[in-house]
């Protein structure tokens, strides 16, 4: 099992952060800009980053700040795919450590900027116009399956083996991704809004009428 796929419900992790800033260091903005460039020009997509996050040592996952993890994931991916090599990255890192005020090269492809801005407005809608024959209907009880852990999943760990009720069948099929290995969500399929009662997930907690909703891919469900 991978801890990152089972984060919800984990106990004894201490107080939460209430930090309201999006970026806490200037370099994080620059890193995020490069990330959006990678998204907008098709170098990578969210699932590639998530594969890296889920593949981390879980102790490191807790240890490092959000964008520090991104930096590790982005550079590892870019090296693996030969967009850059580790030696040139190391060499330039040393150069900027020794010369923090040295300017960036006045080079680049000006067309990329508009492409990235267009991409941010267009997005990447996962809906696919394929025939939809949903297996479950509104009001039906469904149980979340408990498959083996995968390289990458959208199955929330604490929902495994839990029973909920279908509140909505989404009108179109969703394609999650076909670019990374997942546990069978790489084909367009129905998704369902399923309602779970918190008391059914964590019966040891004080009983309330609290509920929890999640959109679940059909492949993760069976009739209960």
């Amino acid at each position, binding site marked *: 099992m991978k801890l990152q796929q089972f984060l919800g419900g984990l106990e004894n992790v201490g107080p939460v952060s209430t930090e309201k800033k999006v970026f806490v260091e200037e370099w994080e903005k620059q890193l995020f800009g490069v990330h959006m460039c990678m998204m907008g020009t098709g170098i990578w997509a969210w699932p590639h980053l998530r594969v890296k996050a889920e593949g981390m040592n879980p102790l490191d996952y807790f240890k490092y700040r959000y964008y520090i993890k991104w930096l590790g994931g982005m550079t590892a991916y*870019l090296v693996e795919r030969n967009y850059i090599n580790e030696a040139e990255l190391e060499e330039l890192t040393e150069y900027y450590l020794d010369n*923090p005020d040295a300017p960036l090269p006045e080079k680049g492809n000006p067309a990329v900027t508009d492409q990235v*801005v267009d991409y941010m407005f267009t997005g990447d809608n996962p809906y696919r116009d394929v025939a939809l024959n949903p297996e479950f209907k509104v009001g039906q009880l469904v149980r979340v399956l408990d498959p083996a852990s995968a390289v990458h999943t959208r199955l929330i760990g604490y929902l495994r083996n839990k029973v909920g009720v279908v509140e909505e069948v989404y009108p179109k099929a969703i394609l999650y991704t076909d670019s990374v290995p997942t546990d069978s969500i790489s084909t367009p399929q129905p998704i369902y809004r399923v309602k779970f009662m918190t008391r059914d997930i964590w019966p040891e907690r004080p009983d309330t009428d609290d509920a929890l909703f999640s959109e679940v891919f059909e492949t993760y469900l069976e009739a209960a």
Partner: protein
Amino acid sequence: MSDKDHGHHHHLRETESYYAARTKALESLFREKNLIGQDTVDRVINFFDTEMGPFNGAKVVARAWTDPAFKTRLLADCNAAIAELGIRDGIEGENLKAVESTASVHHIVTCTLCSCWPWPLLGLPPYWFKDPAFRARIVREPREVLKEFGVELTAGTKIEIWDSSAQIRFFVIPARPDGTEGWSEEKLAELISTEAMQGLDVVTVN
């Protein structure tokens, strides 16, 4: 400092200056390889200061509070309703869903698997939302987490949590505070925090 004092093996790898240099090296390589424009990073950051940010969400909530018909349309089709206000959707918001908190039901949004967040309405997620401890605890012990945010719900308030796992991005219309009758939308919008639009704050009048 002599040359040997800042040789390649002397730099610590877990410092902010190291991360900053490595990020700068990354953009530098992207420029050398024509993978990025010189103004791409600035335009991306500017985009989230001007096009997609919590100012959009606050405008939507203020309209929903003052126009019940708009609120009905917003709850039925969030993307179509925000377009009425001239707000464009896009990345991380192709399929938005608004939910409404009331005196009896308080909605909270989280993403325990990563950091899914409704960008067109709220911009980029703040650090608290991305915090593994927050994501671990909010689903199981929401009232304790709310207390750490300085929020205490009225006894008997039911909590409904939205844990993002597919491609729907959730947005909370917080309850309108008493004492704001007759206020303009602009004045109402100023009351509404990013946190309130994900359920980690309640809107109050000072």
